[in-house]
């Protein structure tokens, strides 16, 4: 079909608003975006190729380095896969500590996503508040695991470090501080009139479109799809987890959903600390042969690992499906067409929180 297009505008791969290299090509008429296409391939390192044939001890560290923002969930999903393959059970205390670490990681990832969005719409004040709040969440993780980013906290049969009583008290104090700050900044975002003009009704993803693109995570939940892999996770089921859903499907809904999920994560951590049973943190076991698909809810949506290993715990075959793949598809094919201003292209793209490093590996 012939279409009248004024200009085809490429954005990226090096762009002031984007943290990672990706190129979005927009066909525009006037300021209106007719269609968009994303061009990837700037970050492809071939991690799955490197993983094949290596022992799980090495693959564990490679899995973490698929994504530096959500490294905990990559670690967790891979380790849970290896445990399922080898029949290793986890002590209760370790299972709860895994949830604590995973939710702290989700808090920092959501704060970072909201920072990026605020930075993109040039609300630098709110962005800096959120980035500073994120440092508190990083502190909590550093205190438990010893490092800030690639922690390798979970290992088959448990976790590496216990939560000491002094750390627990400090963690609770930090959670109270995080809750106060996020409450304040979430309200600033929700009630800001200029933020509303840049966010409300921009980049709408209808529920039907989200289903067609198979969007996952906060992007899908902001469009009214109540899907969350945490619903099927045994530890989260003990904590009576229910996902938060919004129905507007615009930028504002996606960002506010992340704020709401931060409160939910804070609640889950508090519940874990309250219920935390005494006992060992490492059960032990031997990684063996088998084949499985392991799933988990990353901050951006469903993450799944297909793992096949031999009797020595070497990885024969592995395939990773990360949440950003369907979300980028939903963003370029359903959110971006119809955007009325080019300035909104970057903000819509960032609101879906695409992680290019996860995506290309």
């Amino acid at each position: 079909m012939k279409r009248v297009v004024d200009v085809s505008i490429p954005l990226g791969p090096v762009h002031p608003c984007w943290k990672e290299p990706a190129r979005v090509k927009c066909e525009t008429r006037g300021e209106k975006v007719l269609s968009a296409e994303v061009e990837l391939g700037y970050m492809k390192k071939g991690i799955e190729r490197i993983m094949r044939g290596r022992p799980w001890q090495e693959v564990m560290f490679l899995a973490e380095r698929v994504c530096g923002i959500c490294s905990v969930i990559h670690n967790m999903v891979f380790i849970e896969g290896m445990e399922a393959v080898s029949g290793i059970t986890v002590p209760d205390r370790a299972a709860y500590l895994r949830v604590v670490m995973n939710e702290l990681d989700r808090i920092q990832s959501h704060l970072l996503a909201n920072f990026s969005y605020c930075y993109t719409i040039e609300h630098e004040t709110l962005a800096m508040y959120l980035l500073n709040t994120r440092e508190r969440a990083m502190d909590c993780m550093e205190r438990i695991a010893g490092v800030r980013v690639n922690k390798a906290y979970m290992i088959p049969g448990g976790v590496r470090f216990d939560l000491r009583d002094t750390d627990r008290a400090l963690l609770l104090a930090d959670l109270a501080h995080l809750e106060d700050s996020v409450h304040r900044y979430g309200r600033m975002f929700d009630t800001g009139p200029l933020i509303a003009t840049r966010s409300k009704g921009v980049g709408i993803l209808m529920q039907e479109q989200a289903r067609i693109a198979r969007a996952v995570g906060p992007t899908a939940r902001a469009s009214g799809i109540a899907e969350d892999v945490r619903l099927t996770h045994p530890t989260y089921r003990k904590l009576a987890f229910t996902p938060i859903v919004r129905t507007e499907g615009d930028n504002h809904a996606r960002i506010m959903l992340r704020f709401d999920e931060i409160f939910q994560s804070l609640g889950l951590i508090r519940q874990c600390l309250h219920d935390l049973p005494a006992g060992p943190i490492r059960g032990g076991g031997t990684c063996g042969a088998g084949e499985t698909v392991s799933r988990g809810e990353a901050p951006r949506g469903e993450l799944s690992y297909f793992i096949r290993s031999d009797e020595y715990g070497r990885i024969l075959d592995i395939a990773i499906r990360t949440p950003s793949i369907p979300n980028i598809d939903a963003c370029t094919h359903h959110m971006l067409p119809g955007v009325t201003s080019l300035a909104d292209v970057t903000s819509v793209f960032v609101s879906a929180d695409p992680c290019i490093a996860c995506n290309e590996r």
Partner: protein
Amino acid sequence: MSLLQDAKNWVRSRSIHVAYVDVGSCNGCDIEILACLAPRYDIEQYGIYVHNNPREADILLVVGAMTPPWVERLPALWAKIPAPKAAIAIGNCPVSGCVYNRRETYILGPVAKYIPIAAEVPGCPPRPTEILSAVLAVAPTVFRDYEVNRS
């Protein structure tokens, strides 16, 4: 030492514009650079501004393990930065390829093969304070008396 040079030294000591380019990292180092912007580290109190625009940058922070598409793009990007300029490799990846430098990989490191690297900050990832101190250490050695040293 001319008066003009003194003025340039003074201006350049408090105005360092930084761009960063991700040539195939895991995002870890990327986000630690972003964390430098946070009021806790407050990179701007030292006169360092992260604009992420190569054409007005003084220092380029290179993050990542050098994937094939960047082999021709990174030197082109480096050429766009006006002199005086310096590149700092952040993290293990640009230095050695870190965990990605194994059999079957796609990466074509190290970054120093493609552009001149003035300093390297190892770590997986380095802390924001380390990145900050590297920028502060490199800037005076490259920019002070640049015109005198060049001639």
